[in-house]
């Protein structure tokens, strides 16, 4: 019971505090991969903590003394005891409902998001096959249209698409930088990261963290790909490629989707690279691991305490705990 409360409290704490620390923090631009890991770990641990809270309520912790037989015996007893009282039953069913709905909703939204994304890409690819010309030299598909655009189509056949408008707007080096950026997206399978974050947002729209994470992860993935492209050419080249494409674009109506992010990308690339440093990055990933493990540790803490007590107990107290168990079964209402 305490474990369940602790787990829910943990989930709430993460959901409320993490955006405050993470969103717009300066260090995230210096270590985008670490920042993405934080957002992902936060999302996973919130969902995990809620499911575990439900499980802990539904399956009261059994004493792990006395080997497997002891576990099953005390499990059965604990369940019987839980179902025996009305309060126990209410708690158990609440736990099952909580764990069940959170887990089911998450899985459903994940599969739905992946399926929908795949469908849309398949349709896009079918049109691309007809309208585009493959270019062996660039290892990309060229679409003859004045709009200056470069994008990648992830999935089983990883395509990169360039328009003739983009080819006209970019120099050879700028084109190399753009291709490197898109290859980074494909190699890193970033479309799966985005799909997962969107799925959680769809599953639990009322949790602000999931909405914020979606936007932040998108931004950070672009920084990651920019860094990969910069490693192949250089930062200024990637920045000039962005500006060249922007200049060549036919401007959108007022409701553009990605405006502010492009400016911050250019500014970030034009400033000298300033990575976070190995020590702090390693420390950050340790924190990520802690965030992921914390719900599990909280959930098994009572059982761990029980093991500890039974290990430390003398043979006398061991038999007395067994007899206490039998007395319990005698006392259990028919």
């Amino acid at each position, binding site marked *: 019971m305490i474990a369940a409360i602790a787990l829910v409290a943990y989930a709430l704490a993460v959901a409320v505090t993490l955006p405050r620390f993470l969103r717009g923090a300066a260090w995230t631009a210096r270590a985008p991969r670490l920042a993405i890991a934080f957002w992902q770990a936060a999302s996973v641990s919130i969902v995990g903590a809620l499911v575990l809270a439900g499980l802990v309520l539904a399956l009261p912790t059994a004493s792990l003394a006395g080997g497997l037989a002891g576990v099953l015996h005390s499990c059965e007893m604990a369940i019987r005891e839980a179902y025996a009282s009305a309060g126990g039953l209410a708690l158990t069913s609440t736990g099952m409902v909580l764990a069940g709905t959170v887990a089911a909703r998450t899985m459903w939204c994940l599969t739905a998001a992946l399926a*929908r994304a795949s469908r*849309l890409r398949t349709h896009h690819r079918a049109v691309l096959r007809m309208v585009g010309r493959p270019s062996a030299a660039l290892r990309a598909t060229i679409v003859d249209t004045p709009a200056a655009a470069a994008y990648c189509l992830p999935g089983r056949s990883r395509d990169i*698409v360039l328009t003739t408008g983009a080819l006209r707007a970019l120099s050879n080096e700028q084109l190399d930088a753009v291709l490197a950026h898109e290859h980074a997206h494909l190699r890193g399978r970033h479309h799966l990261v985005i799909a997962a974050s969107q799925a959680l947002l769809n599953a639990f729209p009322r949790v602000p963290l999931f909405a914020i994470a979606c936007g932040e992860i998108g931004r950070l993935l672009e920084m990651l790909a920019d860094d990969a492209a910069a490693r192949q050419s250089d930062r200024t080249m990637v920045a000039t490629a*962005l500006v060249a494409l922007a200049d060549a674009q036919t*401007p959108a109506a007022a409701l553009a989707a*990605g405006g502010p992010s492009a400016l911050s990308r250019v500014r970030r690339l034009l400033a000298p690279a300033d990575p976070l440093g190995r020590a702090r990055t390693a420390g950050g990933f340790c924190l990520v691991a802690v965030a992921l493990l914390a719900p599990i540790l909280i959930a098994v803490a009572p059982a761990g305490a029980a093991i500890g007590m039974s290990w430390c107990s003398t043979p006398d107290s061991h038999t007395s705990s067994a007899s206490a168990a039998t007395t319990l079964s005698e006392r259990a209402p028919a």
Partner: protein
Amino acid sequence: MRDFGQLEAQVMERLWAAGRPVTVRTVYEELAAERKIAYTTVMTVLDKLHRKGWLLREMIDRAYVYAPVRSREAYSADLMREALSHSHNSPGTLAAFLDQLTVAEARQLRTALDEAARRPARKQPGKRASS
């Protein structure tokens, strides 16, 4: 069946280039001039494209006549629209290098680049100074 996809693309190419409705025979003769292909294959491809919704079909003088449903430019524009708008949050996640910008936003980018170019070149001064 990847060859078939390529063949379909080539046939669509001919249809778009023709600029007017064409018969199976016309397409066959054009293709046969460049490669070894059977008349029935051309017929099958055209029929398939019609069934997939790429081509319109009419019976004129007891022969089928095919025409593209839309122009190539229309399809290209659709592709771009899908790829560029909301690409980061689009379900297909097409991951555009640069999303659509407004005029003001594009100008801001250009300004940032020009400003950086005007700044005197520095060699990581902060790091040197602190170490």
